[in-house]
């Protein structure tokens, strides 16, 4: 696993030109910089922030928790504590009077060298949530309008369309009807029921599905149909549960996204929301977006696909015709494992579905981030090279498994792991649980007497 880049990675990263950052920096004045930083640090933070700042004693126990730190030969500047020191602590000590070069570094560190994966928080003796500190830096960047271009464009899409990929309203519905039509090749009376008032389940996805991976909607429709579920998908905005705004610190747009999502469920009078295989979206609708608007917990029962598929398999609503033959390993997405505790059910599913399972190490809530999460992959092509460098540890972890197939039940993980597999020439296929279930399931319709 030879890294062919000979230049110092930090130098390479500092030389990257991101138009969103550069143009934003050019507009800034010292007065604007200090005003925004002081406003965020004094008006938008509270006791939690103060405790974190005053408690961290730079013990460095967080360092080895960070896969970016490990991927960069344990250079101290990549330690989570050092990332705080290089950003927030400088802002505090200089009372917001920081330079544009400092801000450029702060954007890079907070947006591209931290996945806000919270692994370090588990290793901190005080449980300091460094992800929260990095998100506070991103909030400053948002208010200074120096967010990286690609992820800002994604947030712009969220704000205008309520989905992250500029999917137009007619394109969304047309895609569902197209998938429904195709799926009728397998089940002639299969439906993707649109706006079915009073369905038990509203199924929501993230925008890459209609945009690039419509087959995933097809597969889920087959699973829903075969399992005899009373489900629906909304034809209106609110169908996309993803939320990059929460990762750029645009909490207002983040809140609107969550509001529209849950308002859509209320309009359809469903009992619960089942969401596709995505990790950050789970964090958004379960933790961040909902709480910004004032819902302590999601106002509707919210079920990640792992939980949902697990129930279908264990209850016998979906039966396995023949187990999947290739050796598989499982990547635990941070937001649904550390953040949602779904790793045990994920393993039970692997064992139901597959003949040969190889654990990666570390795993479950200790797993390394995919390296794409926290909006890092969404910072786009300018940052892909450094992302690959920062993902070396993840690549080595994957390689050690020797598995043929890598199951990754999260969209961001999926995309990031594909990049790692390609960059480090690992020769693995990356799949969702939905891919495996669709491949091994009996394509018959569940009847109540089958239980």
């Amino acid at each position, binding site marked *: 696993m030879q890294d062919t880049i000979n230049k110092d990675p930090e130098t390479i990263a500092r030389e990257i030109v991101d138009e*969103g950052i550069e*143009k934003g920096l050019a507009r800034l004045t010292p007065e604007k910089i200090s005003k925004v930083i002081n406003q965020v640090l004094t*008006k*938008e933070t509270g006791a939690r922030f103060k405790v974190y700042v005053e408690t961290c004693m730079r013990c460095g126990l967080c360092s080895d928790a960070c896969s970016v730190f490990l991927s960069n030969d344990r250079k101290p500047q990549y330690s989570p504590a050092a990332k705080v020191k290089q950003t927030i602590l400088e802002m505090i000590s200089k009372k917001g009077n920081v330079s544009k070069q400092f801000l450029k570094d702060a954007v890079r560190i907070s947006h591209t060298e931290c996945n806000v994966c919270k692994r370090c928080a588990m290793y901190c003796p005080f449980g300091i949530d460094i992800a929260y500190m990095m998100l506070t830096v991103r909030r400053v960047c*948002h*208010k200074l*309008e120096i967010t990286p*271009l*690609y992820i*800002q*464009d994604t947030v*712009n899409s969220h*704000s*205008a*369309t309520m989905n992250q990929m500029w999917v*137009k*309203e*007619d394109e969304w*519905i*047309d895609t569902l*009807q197209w998938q429904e*039509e195709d799926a009728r090749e397998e089940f*002639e*009376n299969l*439906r993707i*029921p*649109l*706006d*079915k*008032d*009073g369905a038990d389940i509203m199924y929501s996805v993230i925008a890459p599905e209609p945009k690039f991976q419509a087959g995933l909607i097809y597969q889920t429709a087959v699973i829903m149909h075969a399992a005899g579920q009373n489900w629906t998908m909304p*034809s*209106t*905005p609110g169908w996309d549960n993803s939320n990059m705004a929460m990762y750029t610190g*645009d909490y*207002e747009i983040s*809140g*609107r996204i969550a*509001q529209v999502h*849950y*308002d859509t469920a*209320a309009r359809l*009078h*469903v*009992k619960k929301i089942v969401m596709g295989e995505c990790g950050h979206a789970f964090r958004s609708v379960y933790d961040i977006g909902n709480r910004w*608007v*004032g*819902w*302590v*917990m999601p*106002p509707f*029962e919210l079920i990640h696909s792992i939980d949902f598929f697990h129930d279908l398999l264990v209850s016998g609503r979906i039966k396995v015709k023949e187990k999947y033959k290739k050796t598989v390993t499982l990547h635990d997405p941070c937001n649904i494992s550390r953040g949602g505790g779904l790793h045990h059910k994920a393993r039970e599913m692997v064992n139901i579905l597959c003949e040969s399972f190889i654990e990666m190490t570390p795993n479950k809530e200790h797993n390394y981030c995919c390296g794409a999460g926290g909006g890092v992959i969404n910072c786009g092509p300018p940052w892909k090279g450094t992302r690959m460098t920062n993902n070396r540890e993840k690549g080595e972890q994957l390689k050690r498994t020797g598995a043929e197939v890598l199951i990754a039940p999260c969209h961001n993980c999926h995309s990031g792991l594909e990049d790692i597999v390609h960059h480090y020439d690992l020769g693995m296929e990356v799949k969702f649980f939905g891919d495996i279930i669709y491949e091994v399931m009996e394509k018959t319709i569940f009847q109540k007497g089958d239980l």
Partner: protein
Amino acid sequence: MKNEKTWDWQILKKEIPINEWQERFNWIEEPCVSPDGEKIASIVNTDDAEFSVCVNGETWEETYEKAWSMRFAPDGKLVALVSNDEEWTISVNGSSWETMFDYIWDLKITSKGSFIGAAVQKDGEYGMVVNDTIWDNLYANISGVVLSEQGTSAAIVQVTPMGQGDIEGFSAGIFSAAVNGINQPEKFMNIWDISFDSQGKQVAYSIRKNRTDYSLMNNNDLWDKNFQFVWQPQFIEKDSSLVAPVRLAGKWTLFKDGNPFWKKNYNQLWKVTVHNDSGKIAAIVSDAFGKWTVSENDKIWNFHCDTMISDLFYSDNGDSLVAVFKNKGYWDVAVNGKPWNIKADKLWSPIISPDNTILAARMEKNGKYQLIVNGKVYKEHFDMIFEPKISPESDKILLKALKNGVYSRQILTLDNIL
């Protein structure tokens, strides 16, 4: 739908079996029922990629390659979005409109059924159609379509082209509000939540000026204050003013015509509802994190729920303020701050009788659908209940329900229930 007096309020029960439809067609989709309860209809699959509509057992002559979003208008017309030869239009009672589109969605029908509208796409351009007439101007994109009672149509439209990843162009403002296909001159970074006044003449909406400043537009006038965030505005007819929830210093309050109106600050405040005759104003609010209630004229109810308030509305005479809420995992109704305590798994907004004495709603509880009147649950349960109606004399309930494949239209006297 003001012909309710002519409806049959005498025959206690009429039945239409629809289970035999399952045998006649490859499959039938979820049925809908006419306001007077006399008709039940479903989109049905008649052949490979061929659909029609079955009404009381009679199938429309027209067939379609696709059909969806079917519903009865309040005046009894049956409306659906339909497609043949990859062109879309609206079918009303089985007769398709003349104008065809490349796509059509977001069907809107006014409360008397006089106007039917939708968002449309034709040759990659976007607009609205109302009663078979498409806007003169079409745009690069459209969202948030609305239709006033008078047939005025409005939407958020993209008026400036934007290249991929052009965040500078986006910040400069590419969206306008268009009314009847004529866009307003002002462009903004974002526009949401268009509201009409009750005459359908004035429009107001939420706007975003830049990444951090939000405000309100009242027709062509921009409020001169910036806010941290805003939600949908509402007109007050009594004094021709506009109110909107705004966020300042991390707290929400209600502003009127750009100035502070309510005095209290809330953790959240949205879904403002106005009773025009009395001038009462109410909103869903959270006065402590995770605690939800209703504020009427800035005074909160002596009631809280822990999960959500989904709907809030006044009775016609303004005496009843009704909230649909969820507490500890169950849905319920509160009227003027007093909850029914029915603990439903699903619950639809109640309807209110003309004399304001009867509230009727439908719910699902433990897998069974039931009617609730003034908080009392009617004994009979069903596989599905459609929206009930109350007689003009406020003495009878029209119950429309499905059980064991048979649709029934029942007239219940209040004695049956209360």
